[in-house]
């Protein structure tokens, strides 16, 4: 192989690589660019089809955000989401951390099977469960209450986070708690005093994912919650801001962007762990 053709091929390949990535980025990120520009456009600019929609045809405006924050319950929806998120996170931590530890260290063959059984709960999704839940929630008097979400959401966060913590504990060397146990601590105390403190990274991951899963959940909130004051963000925005044929596009897009971007930034830092949560045990 001689020099020149090789470098030509190389630069062609590099050009193709850049082009390929650009095409994917354009497809995947375009809606967010679109949300951003729509948020700051005046309504008159939006509905004038002679304007180039990619650019501002009229001066940018903050009016859409003003409508969002002062004429809808958007702030309330965010607070509701955070409230539910914090409570669900607490429940998830209390249940999933010990269970993950037990599956990683204390159980033999039956624990392995149980791990797979927990994994299989992914196969009974909210789409099958929301109908019986709508009746259960009404029967226990939690209809249209945020508590119904606090009760139900751990049903999908706990399996995932148990699986995640199991993988995390397996990556911690056994010597840590065995040294403590040789020093006379019981297994349980070694878990509480030695293992839990070094697991803060794993628990932080659980916190992040529980919060984002709560933020993204739609089906249960749509089914259980009926008044605007109790909506979470993911249901409030598409149901309240779309009234019949009237769409407040600027405000809608602003809401989507405000919720999506912070979640995306935090999530991006943890995505490798998230992938591990899906694939640990499936692929080593």
């Amino acid at each position, binding site marked *: 192989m001689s020099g020149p053709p090789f470098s030509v091929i190389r630069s062609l390949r590099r050009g193709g690589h850049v082009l390929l*990535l650009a095409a*994917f*980025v354009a497809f*995947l*990120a375009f*809606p967010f660019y*679109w*949300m951003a520009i729509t948020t700051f456009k005046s309504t008159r600019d*939006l*509905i004038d089809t002679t304007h*180039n929609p990619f650019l501002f045809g009229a001066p940018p405006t903050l009016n859409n955000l003003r409508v969002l924050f002062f004429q809808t319950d958007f702030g309330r929806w965010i607070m509701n989401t955070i409230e539910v998120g914090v409570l669900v996170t607490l429940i998830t931590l*209390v*249940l999933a951390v010990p*269970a993950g*530890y*037990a*599956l990683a*260290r*204390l*159980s033999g063959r039956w624990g392995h099977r149980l791990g*797979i059984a927990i994994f299989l709960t992914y*196969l*009974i*999704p909210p*789409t*099958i*469960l*929301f*109908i*019986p839940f709508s*009746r259960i929630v009404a029967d226990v008097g939690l209809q249209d209450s945020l508590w119904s979400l606090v009760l139900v959401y751990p*049903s999908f966060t*706990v*399996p995932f986070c*148990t699986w995640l913590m*199991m993988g995390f504990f*397996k990556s911690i060397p*056994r010597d840590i708690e065995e040294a403590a146990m*040789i020093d006379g601590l019981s*297994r349980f105390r070694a*878990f509480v005093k030695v293992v839990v403190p070094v697991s803060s990274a794993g628990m932080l991951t659980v916190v992040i994912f529980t919060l984002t899963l709560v933020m*993204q959940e*739609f089906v249960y909130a749509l*089914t259980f919650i009926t008044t605007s004051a109790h909506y979470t963000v*993911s249901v409030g925005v*598409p149901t309240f801001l779309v009234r019949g044929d009237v769409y407040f596009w600027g405000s809608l*897009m602003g809401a*989507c962007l405000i*919720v999506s971007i912070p*979640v*995306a930034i935090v999530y*991006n830092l943890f995505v*490798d762990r998230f*992938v*591990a949560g*899906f694939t*640990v*045990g*499936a692929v*080593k």
Partner: protein
Amino acid sequence: MSVAAPRPRPLPARRERKQRSPAGSLSRPRIHPFDDEAWLGRMLLAPAVIYIVALVGFPFFLAIFYSVSDATVGSTTLHFVGLRNYERILQDPTFWRSLRNAVVFTVVSQALVVVLGKILAMALYADFPGKWAVRFLILLPWVAPISLGSIGWLWIFDPVYSVINWSGRALHLFGPGFWPIWLGQPDLAMASIVMVDVWRLLPLATVIILAGMSSIPQDIHDAAAVDGAGFWRHLFRINLPLIMPIMLVALLFGIVFTFTDLIVVYVLTRGGPFDSTQVIASYAYFTGVQGGDLATGAAISLFLFPALVAVAIVFLTIAKRTEVT
């Protein structure tokens, strides 16, 4: 690459050492060393297992029970009606349409996701400047709440102000009389929801496949290069077979998410036009919750389950097969 969790290393050897030293004698009567720890393990597991059984297992059986009853949202009593609901559903053309739509929706979008995800993962595999930013942009659709992402698409597909149509017109790709109504024409509506589903799940598939690719040891690539394997040969003989298990994981999650998805359809089309995008999940929602007919809704949604069980069986079979090797 072994599928299924590695079994915890059995502990007895270490435990003996630990118990031996305080006692200082080798001739202790053998106490089964696992007893107390197994008990502790159960105690630590119990809360999570009870919660999951109560909030996944119990409602699941309740769904089965409702599907053979006459439960409605308003009523407080219910009666056993046998398989009448199922009979009615099987004679309902909308149900068959929903089933067919769900299968088309899932198969087409997941085929696209796997192929595009593999291509994108290969493009992202090597390091290049600005990789972090590219990865961030590519991951956005997966991390943003899907109900809100779908709203963004609703605006992109707007019948009057669609940016796709504007661009098509501006670039002279669309003729004068050509103005597609993306969500209002049956075939286009299905294509649109497929596109949004691909948009949503492609990032997840890509990062899962990337994780699989980086777990292939470098010596295998080196050996292939030494043997003179070209790009395609390398791809089909080495790369794809080795990441097959993890690609199946990505695919199976994609199938579960897509087949049971309600949000994209609910936000974009509400199943229309003329039920051309109605899928099982959305039909169950409109019947069971909005229509108030819990029994029929539960029966419809339960048709999802056999499909998911088939998915599970495929998954476990592959898990088992690779575990042996």
